[in-house]
């Protein structure tokens, strides 16, 4: 009885402690990408699936929560050998001791060893892998347990899930356990780099500039490239003709040839893996910084672009981290110099460098590359030769040590949206501390999405923030704060319009992340990419206005605002299916958000009216003219209202969300009002879609874009 009471107490305490971890409900892990956790306190590293919640508030007991619902969790537990019973002197003893502990502590549950085997036999600290079956209250669980003893500590790594899910998670369990590395030389990283002899300052890549190749003078052929493994039609081309000129080659010291995405393909790659195992001791002692550099270009103003990525791999080939440069495209055949740097993760034994060329226009894949450089340096870096200064937006190689911040992440959320709809995508920082500055690039598919605005997020209150989305398919972000940014919150909200067809998707990929703390020291954050999916209305979740696949209070707020015309109506929140959005729908959403109860008699996923037109329609000239005539009228009305000081009249021509934002804040007596009104009346149409028309206007030689959007039966101005 006492034991039962004790267990009940432990259960409650554990529940509370679990809840105090603030564990969110996570999506099922995709099982593909792994991040690496490094314990500087105990000198080990382990890979875990990206997206897991890491709780390392107690460094001796680190939890990686893959899925809260099924409680699929990794645990890395460390104990000094000194606290073990004296009888535990070997791995066999440790296995016996741990299993005995488990069996003794719960007399109601059944614990059974399915298998046990020796692992890591060729490593300094061998291990024992034990598969346990645990049955409790009729539910079977599986725990994969790795036991390792170093000269100081006993390590126990457990990976647990429900037995029925074991096959699903087994590859991730296996990868994590295989990745577990004990290395007593892993130091706590400090701001002072270790003093070491001069290290490699040479380019580790073979054939980094496509000069080691035989080809015809006219080009246009797919040829093998010494040192590189190619996919699709990745090739090399001579300078000149349709490609960057020989003068451009002279400018960047590019030699005779460049790398190119090649003919007749949408995506092609060239990959080279570099063995760095001879530098293993330095790498594991955190004394190496990787520098990746390249000249990148694209044809004309097309969207075709190139990216170069360096991936750090363990001896077993596990991915430990990566850095990348690009994408760069649409540069009118002019090369741009790009550079990135980052700490080489402990355990790295090879670096895989991949050039990826992605086509957006035409038949030829016009991502261009030259003068690649990969160096693993400690103090100084020899940059690639370049006779021109680095263009704005590039950075010089870092010479400061880079610190990996456990649990700190840059996250791009995923969203779904109806065809032609608008969607706000948050970009968030999680668990950061003292960030002084940050730059990163977000790449999207301009055939699927169009950016209409980028707003500063809540975490950046008081910080300087500048986005640049003038050059699709990339958005550049930069922000800085003298006070340091800490905690979790949004750094930006990106508003996209879904211009792709139903079923299309755009990845939202983060690259070129450069982060410093307020002292200027480089920081490494893990990143999580997002996706925007243009979904059939039938597939959208009823009540989920913001498309985050949840029904929450903010969806209820949106419905309530719609009910009083402060937000454009979206029948995805018409919970009672009466054809309109009312306060009753907001009430039903709030109830579902808090209690989980769904609307009586309704399914959670339900058809909603499809917009009258889709953006994939091909418009004839007559239709385009009719649309433009209507939208021009709206712009004219807005312009006239501005000139006459008619605030209400102007607000009536704005889309509901913009109207709500500006209500009470408009000042039409400002000096620039007349200039803006004139610019508005002279705005030029740039793109026409059935439900949206994009415009550009010029004010003081600056060009500004905006759009006119169909809201119900009316056209309204937005994006100003």
């Amino acid at each position, binding site marked *: 009885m006492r034991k039962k009471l004790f267990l009940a107490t*432990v*259960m*409650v305490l*554990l*529940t*509370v402690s*679990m*809840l*105090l971890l*603030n564990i969110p409900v996570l999506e099922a892990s995709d099982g593909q990408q792994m991040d690496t956790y490094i314990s500087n306190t105990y000198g080990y590293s382990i890979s875990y699936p990206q997206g897991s919640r890491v709780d390392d508030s107690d460094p001796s*007991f680190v*939890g990686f929560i893959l899925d809260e619902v*099924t*409680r699929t*969790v990794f*645990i890395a*537990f460390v*104990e000094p050998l000194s*606290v073990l019973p004296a009888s535990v002197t070997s791995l066999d003893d440790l296995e016996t001791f741990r299993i005995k*502990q*488990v069996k003794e*502590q*719960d007399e109601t549950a059944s614990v059974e060893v399915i298998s046990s085997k020796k692992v890591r036999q060729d490593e300094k600290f061998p291990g024992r892998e034990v598969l346990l079956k*645990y049955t*409790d*209250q009729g*539910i079977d*669980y599986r*725990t994969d347990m790795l036991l390792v003893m170093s000269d100081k500590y006993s390590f126990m790594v*457990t990976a*647990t899930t429900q037995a029925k899910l074991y096959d699903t998670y087994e590859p991730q369990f296996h990868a994590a356990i295989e990745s577990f590395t004990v290395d007593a030389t892993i130091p706590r990283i400090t701001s002072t780099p270790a003093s070491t002899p001069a290290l490699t300052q040479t380019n580790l890549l073979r054939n980094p500039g496509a000069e080691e190749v035989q080809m015809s003078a006219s080009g246009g052929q797919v040829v093998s490239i010494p040192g590189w493994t190619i996919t699709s039609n990745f090739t090399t081309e001579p300078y000149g003709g349709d490609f960057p000129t020989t003068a451009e080659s002279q400018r960047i010291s590019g030699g005779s040839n460049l790398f190119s995405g090649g003919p007749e393909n949408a995506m092609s790659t060239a990959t080279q893996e570099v063995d760095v195992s001879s530098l293993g001791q330095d790498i594991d002692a955190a004394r190496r910084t990787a520098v990746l550099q390249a000249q990148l270009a694209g044809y004309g103003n097309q969207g075709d672009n190139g990216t170069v990525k360096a991936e750090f791999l363990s001896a077993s080939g596990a991915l430990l981290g990566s850095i990348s440069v690009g994408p760069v495209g649409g540069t009118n055949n002019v090369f741009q110099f790009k550079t990135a740097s980052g700490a080489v993760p402990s355990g790295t034994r090879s670096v895989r460098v991949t050039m990826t060329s992605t086509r957006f226009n035409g038949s030829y894949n016009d991502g261009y590359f030259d003068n690649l450089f990969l160096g693993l340096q400690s103090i100084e870096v020899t940059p690639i030769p370049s006779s021109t200064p680095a263009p704005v937006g590039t950075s010089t190689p870092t010479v400061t040590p880079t610190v990996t911040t456990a649990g700190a992440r840059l996250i791009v959320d995923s969203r779904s949206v109806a065809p032609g709809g608008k969607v*706000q995508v*948050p970009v968030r920082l999680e668990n950061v501390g003292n960030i002084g500055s940050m730059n990163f690039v977000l790449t999207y598919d301009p055939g699927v999405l169009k950016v209409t605005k980028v*707003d500063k*997020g*809540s975490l950046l*209150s*008081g910080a300087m923030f500048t986005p640049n989305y003038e050059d699709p398919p990339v958005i550049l972000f930069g922000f800085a704060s003298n006070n340091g940014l800490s*905690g*979790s*919150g*949004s750094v930006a*909200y990106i508003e996209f319009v879904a211009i792709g067809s139903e079923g299309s998707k755009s990845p939202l990929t983060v690259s070129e992340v450069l982060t410093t703390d307020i002292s200027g020291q480089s920081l490494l954050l893990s990143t999580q990419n997002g996706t925007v999916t243009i979904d059939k209305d039938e597939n959208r979740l009823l009540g989920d206005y913001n498309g985050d696949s949840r029904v*929450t*209070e*903010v969806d*209820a*707020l949106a419905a*309530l605002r719609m009910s*009083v015309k*402060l937000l454009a109506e979206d029948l995805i929140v018409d919970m009672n299916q009466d054809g309109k959005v009312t306060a009753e729908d*907001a009430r039903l959403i*709030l*109830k579902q*958000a*808090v*209690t*989980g*109860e769904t609307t009586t008699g309704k399914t959670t996923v339900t058809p909603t009216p499809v917009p009258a037109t889709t953006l994939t329609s091909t418009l004839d000239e007559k239709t385009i003219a009719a649309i433009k005539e209507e939208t021009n009228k709206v712009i004219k009305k807005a312009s006239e209202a501005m000139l006459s000081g008619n605030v209400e009249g102007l607000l009536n021509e704005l889309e509901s969300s913009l109207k709500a*934002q500006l209500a009470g804040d408009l000042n039409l007596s400002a000096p620039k009002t007349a200039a803006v009104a004139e610019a508005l009346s002279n705005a030029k149409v740039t793109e026409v879609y059935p439900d949206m028309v994009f415009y550009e206007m010029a004010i003081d030689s600056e060009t500004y874009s905006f759009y006119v959007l169909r809201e119900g039966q009316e056209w309204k101005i937005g994006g100003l």
Partner: protein
Amino acid sequence: MTRMERHLWLRLLYVVIALTLVASTLTACGGGGKEDKATSAPTATLTSTPAVKELEVPINLKDARNVGSLHMEIVYDPAVLSVIDVEAGELGSNAMIEFSLSTQGRVKVGIVDASGINGDGAVVTVSFNAIDKNKTSQLALENLECYSAKTLYDFVVKSSPGNLSAVDGSYTAAEVTFVY
């Protein structure tokens, strides 16, 4: 069993016990029936110990500016307290409020006010019954999500836990502070 052994055991079964608990919770709340707030998640302990005293504690907001929606979960010790009701506080007087007691020791609260909540003060008041009159329970705030009534963008918030004494009803209010 030594203290160290218990400590280790607690750690070892971190996962399994949590799994067990979740399974139990799901079973208790399953069936799809409408939740009865007054009787949800009863336990043998709760039903065998009569409720003796009603206690009220505010949940405060500090420096709220145009807050349109707020989700919070108040975590308490169910061996000490049970929740009777959640009602609007001064700042929540214009808001729609919903709450759920489907998880023992936790009350989920959703608040929506399209006109925006501003200022300092109580957004809701939680009424508890005292179960164990000899103890005090912490009132922790978790899973906070707050959004602007104007933009629907998130707010950065910090929270501080409160506590409630079942002995004499004295309390420290839990607080959500908006950071700008």
